[in-house]
């Protein structure tokens, strides 16, 4: 077996010898993993070797090799990873006793988690379980297989195929090709206009000023120079406008595509990527892309300019052209050095400013706390320190700049001096004319700038391809929860829900729900209770199909939710969340969010049913009040009642209340409860609640604990059973007066 061979190949011979000496069977090796921590906590090697029958731990430290543990696999009941600081440990359970086996550093967690998973599976299902496939582990570069450092990329930066990315970009830019080629024409025109004036001054000096052969040309030449300047200015302005226009329109297009793609992705994607990072991608990345496109255009312009000037210089006086090249490497080196030397200073300054700003931000948003605890002086001191720090780093930037700028100008100037000397001699020897020398010197002034600019091209190019790649990868992201092509429609929904052996984990290795099965009849009001982390919200997420189950089936009206068209499914499910979310817009728009075509009468009816009509009509702008981002402040209860109106207007067959009343005071809760009572009529309702008082009229209660159903039954039954639900009620009644719970 070749996997076996590859497992064996990595094991040092000493370890293998000890392994075999202890009756290890290398032909039947299932797992061979090395840790990077020795038993004493220093960096070293220990091996986890699992064959068909036994688990061996062999230490291999400083030339010494010995076996530390040897357990028969059949005795292992459980295997788990326990996180520590900077490392984690593997532990197994044997005869109800837990044994720590070894520590490994964080970078190996994933591999050992796979190993532990294998050991657990074996304990459950026996020896037939397939050994873990470590090659599938985690995020590795698709191209070279190295571990990925930036999980937002699928290949590592050194493997990005520049050409491919560029080709895709060009494709994306196809609609702007006309403008782009026009831009290039303008650019070439600009370069020619740049090259012309020194040529004219050369004639001016040689033919008019020094030899005075054609004095009548003076006016023409100066006029020509003026004309060129005018042309140049017009072209520069138009070129800049066009470049900006292209890059802006282009990135706006990309941004639009990204947003359109964003809404297609499933919940799982949003769990993996925090909001902040997504915002960065969509806003900053595209912004940077725009800047980089402009920068790239500049580079191309510089390349054309450098080549153009080079050609002109060499054709005018080949030997002088060579002298121009002497300072060129110096200019390039100085530029690179500049980036290395100055960038840290700029960054340091930038960071100190960032710290200062974020401190100010924290201070201002926490001003009440600062005042309440009388810590004004302490905060002032802290601000002063940070400010001093920012000041010092700014001074360092200026100092470094002051020391560095003259050096750069010297590099540029030295080139000119060489030409003055060599060229001057040539003029004296009458090899070239004075005009040629003067033209030469002005070309030279135009030469080093673009040259030094080009030294930073590779840096910008890297950034450019990385950002583009990131953008493309985002656009290539496939939604995990996929709609089947031949998905079915739900016509008339009764609202029965069935969980059939459902197991699910956000990370498949750590299931949150374990083999959950139950049936909900149409029209039932079901309360879901349990300690936090028991899997209540997960249950709801599966009904809405925000995620797909790991195993088992969720059925609505006897139909697997994976078979149902997504829009169709969600049209029949209404959700009221713990923290009501209002979009920016009017209250009416918010209520009609799921049914924008609803009439005003319907909106008002929904608001009345949600007990919200009274307060809304009392607002100065009534239903037209703007809420959400930057809108009128409404209280938590008012916002919640608006979101309930939204659910009522949708008129779903299945209603989910996820802690709908847990963040409001008792009086508001009573009002919301009244609204909810209207809402639950004739619907299948699943209510998750911390405050058990809200569940007094539930038909049945599902009590979850550690991802399993602990008990299920009517509230009265469960109280009599004195199980988990009873305990939860007891705890709550100790803490607060419960005015609604029956038979406590």
């Amino acid at each position, binding site marked *: 077996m070749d996997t076996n061979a590859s497992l064996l190949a990595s094991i040092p011979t000493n370890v293998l010898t000890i392994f075999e000496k202890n009756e290890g069977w290398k032909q039947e090796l299932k797992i061979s993993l090395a840790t990077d921590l020795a038993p004493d906590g220093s*960096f070293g090697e220990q091996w986890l070797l699992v064959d068909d029958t036994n688990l061996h731990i062999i230490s291999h430290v400083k030339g010494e090799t010995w076996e530390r*543990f040897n357990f028969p696999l059949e005795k292992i009941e459980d295997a788990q990873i326990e996180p520590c*600081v*900077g*490392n984690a440990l593997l532990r197994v359970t044997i005869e109800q006793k837990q044994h*720590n086996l070894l520590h490994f550093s964080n*970078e190996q967690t994933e591999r050992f988690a796979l190993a532990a998973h294998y050991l657990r599976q074996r304990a459950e299902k026996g020896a037939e379980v397939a050994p873990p496939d470590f090659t599938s582990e985690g995020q590795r570069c698709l191209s070279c297989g190295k571990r990925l450092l930036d999980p937002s990329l699928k290949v590592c930066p050194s493997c990005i195929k520049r050409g491919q990315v560029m080709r895709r970009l060009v494709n994306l830019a196809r609609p702007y090709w006309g403008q782009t080629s026009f831009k290039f024409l303008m650019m070439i025109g600009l370069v020619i206009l740049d090259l012309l004036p020194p040529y004219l001054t050369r004639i001016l000096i040689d033919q008019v000023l020094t030899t005075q052969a054609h004095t009548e040309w003076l006016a023409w030449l100066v006029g020509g120079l003026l004309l060129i300047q005018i042309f140049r200015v017009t072209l520069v302005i138009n070129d800049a406008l066009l470049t900006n226009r292209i890059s802006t329109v282009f990135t706006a297009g990309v941004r639009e595509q990204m947003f359109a793609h964003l809404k297609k992705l499933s919940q799982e994607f949003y769990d993996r990527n925090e909001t902040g990072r997504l915002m960065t991608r969509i806003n900053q990345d595209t912004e940077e892309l725009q800047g980089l496109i402009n920068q790239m255009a500049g580079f191309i312009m510089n390349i054309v300019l450098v080549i153009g000037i080079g050609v002109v210089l060499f054709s005018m006086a080949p030997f002088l052209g060579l002298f121009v090249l002497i300072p060129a490497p110096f200019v390039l080196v100085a530029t690179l050095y500049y980036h290395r030397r100055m960038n840290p200073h700029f*960054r340091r300054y930038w960071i100190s400013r960032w710290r200062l700003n974020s401190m100010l931000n924290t201070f201002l948003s926490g001003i009440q706390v600062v005042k309440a605890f009388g810590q004004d002086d302490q905060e002032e001191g802290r601000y002063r320190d940070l400010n001093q720090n920012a000041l010092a780093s700014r001074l360092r930037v200026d100092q470094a700049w002051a020391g560095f700028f003259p050096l750069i100008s010297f590099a540029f100037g030295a080139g000119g001096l060489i030409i003055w000397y060599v060229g001057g001699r040539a003029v004296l020897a009458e090899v070239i004319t004075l005009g040629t020398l003067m033209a030469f010197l002005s070309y030279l002034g135009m030469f080093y700038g673009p040259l030094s600019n080009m030294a930073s091209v590779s840096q910008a190019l890297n950034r450019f391809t*990385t950002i583009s790649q990131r953008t493309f990868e985002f656009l290539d992201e496939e939604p995990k929860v996929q709609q089947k092509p031949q998905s079915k429609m739900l016509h008339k929904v009764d609202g029965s829900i069935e969980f059939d052996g459902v197991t699910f984990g956000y990370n498949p290795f750590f299931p949150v729900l374990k083999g959950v099965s139950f049936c909900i009849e149409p029209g039932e009001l079901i309360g879901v209770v349990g300690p936090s*982390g028991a899997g209540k919200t997960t249950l709801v997420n599966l009904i809405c199909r925000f995620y797909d189950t790991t195993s088992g089936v969720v059925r609505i009206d006897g139909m697997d939710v994976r078979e149902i068209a997504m829009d169709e499914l969600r049209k029949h499910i209404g959700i009221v969340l713990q923290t009501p979310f209002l979009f920016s817009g009017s209250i009416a728009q918010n209520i009609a969010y799921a049914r924008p075509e609803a009439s005003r009468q319907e909106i008002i009816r929904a608001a009345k049913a949600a007990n919200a009509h009274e307060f809304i009509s009392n607002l100065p702008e009534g239903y037209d009040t703007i809420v959400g981002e930057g809108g009128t402040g409404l209280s938590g209860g008012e916002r919640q009642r608006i979101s309930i109106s939204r659910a009522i207007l949708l008129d779903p067959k299945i209603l989910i209340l996820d802690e709908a009343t847990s963040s409001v005071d008792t009086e508001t809760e009573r009002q919301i409860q009244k609204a909810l009572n209207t809402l639950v009529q004739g619907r299948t309702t699943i209510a998750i609640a911390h405050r058990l008082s809200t569940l007094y009229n539930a038909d049945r209660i599902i009590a979850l604990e550690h991802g399993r159903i602990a008990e299920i039954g009517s509230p009265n039954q469960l109280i009599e059973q004195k199980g988990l639900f009873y305990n939860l009620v007891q705890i709550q009644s100790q803490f607060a007066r419960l005015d609604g719970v029956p038979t406590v």
Partner: protein
Amino acid sequence: MDTPTLHESFETVLLDPKNSRFCYEGENLTYTGNDGSFYPRVSLRRCFPLSSENTNIVVRIPDVDPERSHELGMIEDIAELDESSRESVERELHLYYVVPSILRISSIREEFGFLYWTVNTDRGPKEFVIRDSIISSTRQISKGRWLIIDINQSRYEIHNFESLDITSQNFLRRYLLL
């Protein structure tokens, strides 16, 4: 008194260092209290890992599910334990908190937004990678003392910037902008 109560209590239970025994059985740290109660596997936590590593050590029965783990009490200062217990406790802490202290930096290399470090630590030579973002991957603990967090959330410490050799200091100045 070191009998841990099962009831929820906000009062810290101080374990009597004179009557507490810690010793290893295999890789498991065991604990015996003064009333002879024996725990075959306990786990330790530092309350102040940075500012005071040998005081206020929490002793608890571990569980992957934090809700089921349960605290036995606290050792105020491990210096008060008998010698073999203290050694066991020190070993356990050393194993739980793997925060190598950087003694020498052989090289730092920058590539595509990541810094590749090759260092020598008190636990041996190590190579690691951090994100090239000073804000997210370094913390200043006190003057000259820094914590560096790599892409796997492993931590490395620079105890005293001034006591490092010049090469290491220069690397830090350049890449961490110290």
